[in-house]
Each structure stands twice: as structure tokens, then as C-alpha cells.
């Protein structure tokens, strides 16, 4: 299967990181980065990664099911992840989660009909001191309030990019 030139370059870099006979080390990074492009880990992706890393497709499949970031079901263009673990839970993470579900009309690991947004209730994302926290793809949103969440989801649903949405600012650089 073919990937974008950027991803191919990334794969090259991955394979160069590890000892020559330890290509298997590149399996997980390759899967994560491939998923960014394909939005799902398909059988085709599994076989391709297996081939490139010198392992069997089964050995890749074993990995796919183990890691929670790897999805066989297609994700939306924007994968909205709401943390409800303890630090977020006690300052409104659950309210944020319920609001997101209600607003989008979808649940855990589901995608909106237009394929724009998928939703996932996730475990601690390492933003505890700035809770409640939400991640959209890889961008963090700290101290998320219900009104900010509304703006964020409205904006994404309307086809905006996260950075174009007024009143919502991502935390990380």
C-alpha cells in the first residue's frame, strides 16, 4: 500500500533508530503514525507494517489490540478525547464527557455520521493539574468548561479547524 511521502520519510527515520536486526521496534511508532493518515488500522496497514518490520501480520495484530490509541474502526477527522480519570472526574470531567456525548449524539468510540468527529472517553492524559482536560487529536485543551466545549464541538461540526475556533485555545505549543 502507498503512504504519503511525509509518512514514508517518517518510516525511514523510524527504521534507522534501532539496531539493524531489531526492526520490530518500529512496529508501534509506525502504526501510530500510519493511523494518523489512514484514520484506522486496517488489515492492509497491518500487513504493510509487518512486511516493513520483518514480522508476521499476527505479531502486528497482537500489538494493535493491546494499545488503546490504535483503532481498527475508522476515527473521525477530529478525534475528541475526554479524560474522566480521577483528577478530571472530581472537577467536572464526567460532566464534560456527558455533554460531549449528548451534544454529538454519539458515544464512546463512535463517529459522527459526517465522519468529522469521533469521541472517546480516555484514561488519564497527563493534564491533571489543569483539569478537566480534553485532547483533540494530539492537541491538549486545559481547564475546559462546558461553554468552551460547546464552542469547540460547534466549531468542529461546522467544519472549522480547531485553531479557527474563537474562545477555545489549545494549551500545548
Amino acid at each position: 500500500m502507498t503512504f504519503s511521502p511525509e509518512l514514508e520519510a517518517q518510516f525511514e527515520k523510524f527504521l534507522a533508530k534501532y539496531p539493524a536486526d531489531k526492526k520490530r521496534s518500529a512496529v508501534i511508532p509506525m502504526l501510530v503514525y500510519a493511523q494518523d493518515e489512514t484514520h484506522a488500522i486496517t488489515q492492509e496497514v497491518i500487513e504493510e507494517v509487518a512486511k516493513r518490520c520483518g514480522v508476521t501480520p499476527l505479531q502486528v495484530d497482537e500489538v494493535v489490540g493491546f494499545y488503546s490509541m490504535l483503532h481498527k474502526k475508522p476515527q473521525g477527522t477530529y478525534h475528541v478525547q475526554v479524560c474522566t480519570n480521577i483528577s478530571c472526574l472530581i472537577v467536572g470531567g464526567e460532566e464534560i464527557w456527558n455533554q460531549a456525548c449528548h451534544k454529538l449524539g454519539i458515544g464512546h468510540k463512535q463517529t459522527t455520521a459526517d465522519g468529522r468527529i469521533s469521541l472517546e472517553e480516555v484514561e488519564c492524559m497527563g493534564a491533571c493539574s489543569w483539569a478537566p482536560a480534553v485532547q483533540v487529536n494530539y492537541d491538549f485543551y486545559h481547564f475546559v468548561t462546558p461553554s468552551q466545549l460547546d464552542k469547540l464541538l460547534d466549531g468542529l461540526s461546522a467544519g472549522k479547524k480547531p485553531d479557527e475556533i474563537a474562545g477555545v485555545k489549545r494549551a500545548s505549543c
Partner: protein
Amino acid sequence: MADLVKFTINGREIEAPAGMLAIEAAKQNGIEIPSFCYYEGYSLQAACRMCLVEVEKMPKMQVACTLPVAAGMVIRTETDQVKLARKSTLEFLLTNHPLDCPVCDKGGECELQDMVFKYGAGESRYVEAKIHVDEQQWSPVVFYDGPRCILCFRCVRACDEGMGVGALGVVNRGAMSLIAPNKGDHLECDECGQCIDICPVGALTSGPYRYLTRPWEMDHIGTICTHCSDGCKTTLGVRNDEIVRGNNRDRSGVNGEFLCVKGRYAFDFNKHAERLQSPMMRVNGKLEEVSWSKALETIANKFGEIRSRGGKFGVIGSNHTTNEENYYLQKFARQGLGTNSIDHHRTGDVVTLVDALSGTTGRLANSADFYERKAVLVIGSDFSVEHPFLAFQARANFRHHEAHIYTVTAEPVREDNYAARSVRVAKGEELGALEGLREALAAEPDLVIVFDDSIKGDKVRSVVEFGQSLGIPVSYCALVDYSNSRGAIDMGLAPEIGPGYHATGQPGMSMNDMLAAADLAALWVVGANPLENAKLAASKAFVVVQDLFLTETAQRADVVLPAASAYEKNGTVTNGRGEVQRLKRASATMGAKTDLEIIGLIAKEMGLAPMMGPWLPETVYAEIRKTVKGYDIPLPLVTIGAQQSTPVNGRVGVESRPDLVRSEHNNLFESGTLGRYSQVLNTVIEGRQSR
């Protein structure tokens, strides 16, 4: 061996090599430490936590399966804390394990049942919903019931480490973890069924055996697989005179618990609908059923008549019949019919090897050598596919002893994956590649050289010369195809040599010669199918065939006699390494008789009974012991285990006949003519072709 250390288990002083795992040391001293995931010979998991024990001076309980014993160690396996740990682990296991024991194939021989019975709680506190996933069929022989799986990973290791196949893996995480096959929804593998056998619970079940019986309703008959020459012991589960299962859980026999798809499942030819159950005679050009007395009388009359007029006999014996039958047949041919024109389909050049090794002792490799010698050189053979047990041994040798495996083959083979050196050569050029390995091989402490029919005739002598020039102990094995190929040549089913490799002096016709002889008067074929791909030149020859099925050869016969299969008779067979093992009757097919009895009845009908002696396997074996070099092995020894015969005692005074040696190179799912009648093998082959 490591130094012995003294330590105690439950107050008893025990001595074991330092570093031995506590669970093994306990077992060797009759102390049971329960476990699911620990399995001798496979990698350690420490996953099931059933083997937790108390060790003095260690704050937490330790798992005995990864605990090396040391001097002065104080281990306790039956304290309240340990008992509670076992009980609670079983309680945890039963939360998601369905309690469908009444309809589970494993019920009655389930390790989880036994453990709960012995160590578990009488009642469950679990009231939540169980996780359910549907059962899946992965192949004609493998079914997987996820909820029953306790994730001990035995199957994964048996397939990966044991078989070198790696067709099973673990998918998902946590309580949702499941075992998965290599092709998404199905398996592409050896179909050996080791995963099913090793499964402690009913998670992996066997297609052919499912729902046929409760385990306690079976009789268990230990006999020898009738397919390839690896000669695995198989314990047949028999219910109402029908074989319903094959395995070798008691690890008796050379093969331990190893069995391939043939040994485990391909007994099913036995109950094939086309099994012959009555003698048949050609009447007006067509074969018709007749009585035994009519058939025997016809044969006796015809044989007598041909003998008295000096007509040419040809006798072809089998690669599957017992030593007793083979011996009896050649005796009949030589002494009763007065001919040396007796042969069988030779699949490896044992004769030349035996000759080349004359004057030496202990140079024929046995089963254990493949596991114990430091190096194994495989020439020609696709080892894992044609000789799965020997390949299994070599693989275990690599795993456990870091043995070096060398391959010289035309095509890639599974052994390449872990071989110290793999040499690829054009077919027929195998011998030439050996010099390139000389330096590496000469540096090995010892070596087994095993070759198929790519090495025959003078090439065998060259291989032995090469081996003997290495300056290290080398043992040899000439691979042959079938369960008693080796016994057939040992018993003298050959025109140029009699039992024990004695030159006959006046060689009769070889098999090829018989088929080609236009003036052949009678052809007697016992358990072979020479006309599968050949024509009988003598159109008027009187043909007698003893077989299980109406093979191509039987269809040409004038008289066909229904023979019992190897699973329906007693006797001995000799595997490819010359190890003599005992067949034990497991079932019977109505109407069929053993070849030994049939030969005896023909002899009786011809008035040759006094010369031939009784057709009792034990009596014939007693004669073999006296007359066949190397076979002087007491029957009880053969019964309890394989005993290697040692025919090498001097030159075999005959020319090599490489022209008569031809292996069928049957793969895992083929077994000569017999394989065609196995539904399991056919289903597997069809399944592969349809994908």
C-alpha cells in the same frame, strides 16, 4: 550439572541441582505445586499465579515456576496463605469461565475442573455478568471458545516454540484478551493439534472429536502411528470399537506428547466407507464378493499350480505392515514359493548406509540423538514437513541446548529460521555442499547427519566418509517414508537380501522387474499399491492383493482379500531410526483379517503350515529375535518403549540399488495411498486450496 543443594519443602529435606525451578524440584519429589501456565519444555510465563508458595525470608509469596532453588531455602506449599491464594485465583478464574462442563468436551479431563475440585471453593461469590464471545472454527481441526480460555498461553508457546509455526497469538488487552489465529478468522498452520492437546481447559477443541463421547467412556490404546516413518506413539481413544481420538498425553513413546496431524487425526481412514469387508474374486471380468474359503482355495490352487510348473512369482510387501507380517511373507515367498522375487517400495537407501557403517557400532542415530546431539545436519529433506517429529526434536534441541542445525536443501525450509547455517543448492547437488560446511561441523562436539533420497547409492558412502573424516562422533539416519519402511528392509523384503541384510546370493526380481516381466505368472501384493502409477506388463498374471481399499492395484487383482489396518492388529514395527515399537489392536473391521493371518491361511491351504509355523505375532517375533541380526530384543522391552535394533555387523554383500530408491516426499497432509482415505487430511487440503 549444577551442584546439588539441600533445602526443604514442607519440612522435608530435599536435594536438587542449584538453580532448578522449585516447581520441578517439588514434582520430582512427589510434591504437587499446581499450575496452569508452567509447562515443561516451554518458556516461563509466571502468569497463572497458581504456583505461589511461601519462602522463608521472602516478604511476598513467590511463584514456584520461576523460583530457582538454593541451599538452605525453606519452602512451604500448604500453608493457609498459600491455600487461600490458590482458592482465590481459582475464584477469579471462574468469574468469566463458563460453567458449561456438562457439554464441554474437556469435562472429565479438564485441569481447571481438577484444580477447583482440589483447591477451589465450594461456592462462587460472583454475581456479575460474564464476558461472552462466540465460539470460532479456525480450521477443520481447531475450534476456539474464547470464554473458556484461561489465557495460560500454552497453545501459543506450543505453536511458536514447539512447532516453529507461530500461528497463534494474543489479541486485545486485559479481560478482553483472546487467543487469535494467524489469518484473522482462520488458521494456516500444520494442523497438528498440539494447541488443542496442551489446552488445560475446553477452550481449544478438536473438530473431529467434538461432542463424540465423554472422555471416561473411551478405552485408551497405546499403539504406533501408521503413517510416516517417524514412528510416533499414539494413544487411541476407542469407544464402541471405534477410534474417536488420537493423542499421546501420557508422553509414552519416543515422541513424548508430540503428534502431527496424521498421528492425531488421520486414523479416520479406518472407518472409511470404502473399507473392504469381504474377499472378492474376478468373475467374468468383474470383481465379486466371495467367501474366505473360496478365495483362499482359489489362491492356494493357483499358487500351487504355478509353483509346480515353475512359473514366475512376484511378491510385493508393504511399508505399513508389521515386522512379523513382513518376515512371514518373505519366508513364505522364499521357502514356500521358492522365489527371491520379493520386494517393496524402497524410500531411502538404508541398505547402503548399513553397509557403509559396517565395522562400527552405535552410528545409527536414534530419536533421542536429534534432541541431545550438539549439531544436526539435514540434507535434502523439507524436514518439518516430511518428518515433523524429528524436526520437532531438533527444534527442541536448539531451544533447550542451543544445538546448531545445518540445512542443505534445494528449497527454503522451516529450519532456516533457526539454523546455524542454511545452504541452498540445486537438487541433486546436495553432496557437493558438504565441504563448505566442513570447518563448522568439525568444530561441533558431535553431530547427527540425516538425509533423504537425494543421497543414495555411492552418495551415501560419500556422506559417511565425509562424516567419519570430521574427527567427531557422528551418527546417521537415512530417512524413509512410512511407518514400517525400515522394518520392511530389515525383514528382507528385497530380492537381493534376506532378513538381517544377508545377501541371498541369487537375487530375484525387483519390484520394477516384476512389473515389467511379460512372463510373470503370479503377483502377490500385500499392503502396497505398485500399480498406482505403473502398468503390469504380464497381462495374464494371476494377481492377489491384500489391502484395506480397492486401490489401483486391487482393481487389477484376480483375488482381493480385505486386510486389517495397523490399528487393528498386534505386532511390531520399526521406525526410521531402527527403533522397534509395538502395535496394539485398538479396533476391528468386520470381515477384514490381519495380513499375518491371511498369509497363514494361504499357507495352510497350500499345506505349508508346518513349515511356516503359527501365525501368532508373538511366535513370529520369537523367530525374528533368533534369526534377524539386531532384533534380539525381549518383547516386554518393545512394549514399554522403543528399542533400537542394530543390524550393522558387517558388509552387506550386495550392490547398491539407488535405482530402486524413491521417496514420495509426502507432506504433512499426504500419506501415500492411505492418505486419500482420510477425511481429515482431505478436508485440510481442500480448505487450503479453496483459499
